[in-house]
């Protein structure tokens, strides 16, 4: 069934690169969670609503809506959609910040799927420690369970120093303490938890402590945003997958002197922008990822 859906999207011109990570423990853990079902969710990231430089994205006011239409057009609807931060582009004006957050809430309400999980990025939360975000979307870090998989949304942005903080690390340790080492777990964060490139501020100050806490778990995968491009990295057996943005792509690590947005290519509009669907197979311990574009492209 999953392969059929991917094939459909490829033929419809929505599909991108398929990346599958069969985690080391999944084969041994197949018996885990007898009641678990296969399902998929969609990850949208770095919407930067309020950004308005037409040289970088002339469709700054319409790209998000196109992505929502693309999700609504999927042959099967995801169980939920997670937004991994930077819903809005930063503003110093608290009223304007709230206006942008409110607009994101209104626009994303057009998604057919109604189970939406919102997380903050530093653009949403760092200047007021997440106050405005919480008014619209609730806690900046939380957990939930879905069809046998445990999900943990971490907040490494409300502290402008990009730290999780000792309190959240204790909370994470307590959440993980009672869990089976083979349990399927998915962690969401905005910034990379590992030192991807501290020279470009692509890191979390105390992320290594969180990874240490996660390391005993055999079937744990991390999804994040922040760097506006796909990146797949392993810390030991733990895979970390970053998502594309829906406003502007950023350069590959150290591919140019500064981390300035890649220019809009009129010959390939929306290039580098997109979203992904994540399927949890084999009772939730095997992760399959499909990258999707904002607009239809001819099938490769």
């Amino acid at each position, binding site marked *: 069934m999953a392969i059929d859906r991917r094939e459909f999207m490829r033929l419809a011109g929505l599909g991108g690169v398929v990346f599958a990570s069969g985690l080391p423990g999944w084969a041994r853990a197949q018996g885990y969670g007898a009641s678990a079902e296969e399902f998929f969710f969609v990850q949208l990231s770095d919407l930067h609503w309020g950004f308005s430089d037409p040289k970088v994205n002339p469709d700054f006011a319409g790209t998000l809506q196109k992505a929502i239409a693309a999700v609504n057009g999927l042959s099967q609807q995801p169980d939920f959609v997670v937004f991994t931060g930077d819903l809005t*582009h*930063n*503003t*110093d004006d608290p009223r304007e910040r709230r206006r942008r957050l409110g607009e994101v809430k209104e626009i994303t309400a057009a998604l057919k799927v109604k189970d939406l999980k919102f997380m903050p990025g*530093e653009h949403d939360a*760092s*200047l007021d420690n997440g106050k405005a975000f919480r008014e619209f979307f609730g806690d900046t870090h939380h957990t939930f369970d879905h069809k046998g998989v445990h999900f943990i949304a971490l907040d490494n*942005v409300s502290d*402008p*120093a*990009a730290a999780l903080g000792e309190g959240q690390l204790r909370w994470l340790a307590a959440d993980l303490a009672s869990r089976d080492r083979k349990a399927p777990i998915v962690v969401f964060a905005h910034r990379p938890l590992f030192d991807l490139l*501290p*020279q*470009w*501020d692509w890191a979390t*100050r105390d992320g290594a402590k969180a990874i240490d806490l996660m390391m005993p778990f055999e079937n744990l995968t991390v999804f994040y945003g922040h760097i506006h491009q796909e990146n797949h990295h392993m810390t030991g057996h733990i895979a970390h997958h970053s998502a594309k943005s829906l406003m502007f792509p950023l350069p590959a690590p150290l591919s140019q002197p*500064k*981390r*300035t947005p890649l220019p809009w290519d009129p010959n390939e509009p929306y290039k580098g922008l997109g979203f992904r669907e994540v399927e949890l197979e084999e009772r939730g311990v095997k992760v399959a990822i499909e990258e999707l574009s904002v607009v239809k492209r001819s099938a490769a």
Partner: protein
Amino acid sequence: MTRDRSFLHERRRVALALPVAALLALAGGYLAAAQAAPKERVIKLTVKRFEYSQKEIVLKRGQPVVIEITSLDVPHGFSVPDFRARADIVLPGKVTRVKFTPDREGTFTYLCDIFCGTEHERVEGRFIVRT
């Protein structure tokens, strides 16, 4: 007997000479070390939204530096990841000191790692380390 006394006298001379030689060697070592260690260089920087007061600073390889940095507006950061040097926070009106020794040649980024607003990503500069 005479030979025995002479022998003792010789031993005393040796016993005296050894601590003196050790002291001289020690003092010489300190002097050599003092001459070899390059003097610490103090560099004053300010930071404001959205720039450091200097965007490029030339350093001498092996010479220890102390960055004395102050914010002119909101809290900022100062980090030199390649030398694992970082300020916890740079507050307005307060001097924060960050020490490190550039131990290799090249160009190395320093950046604000505390989100300070829309153009936060622009708050950075380069150390150019030469021999």
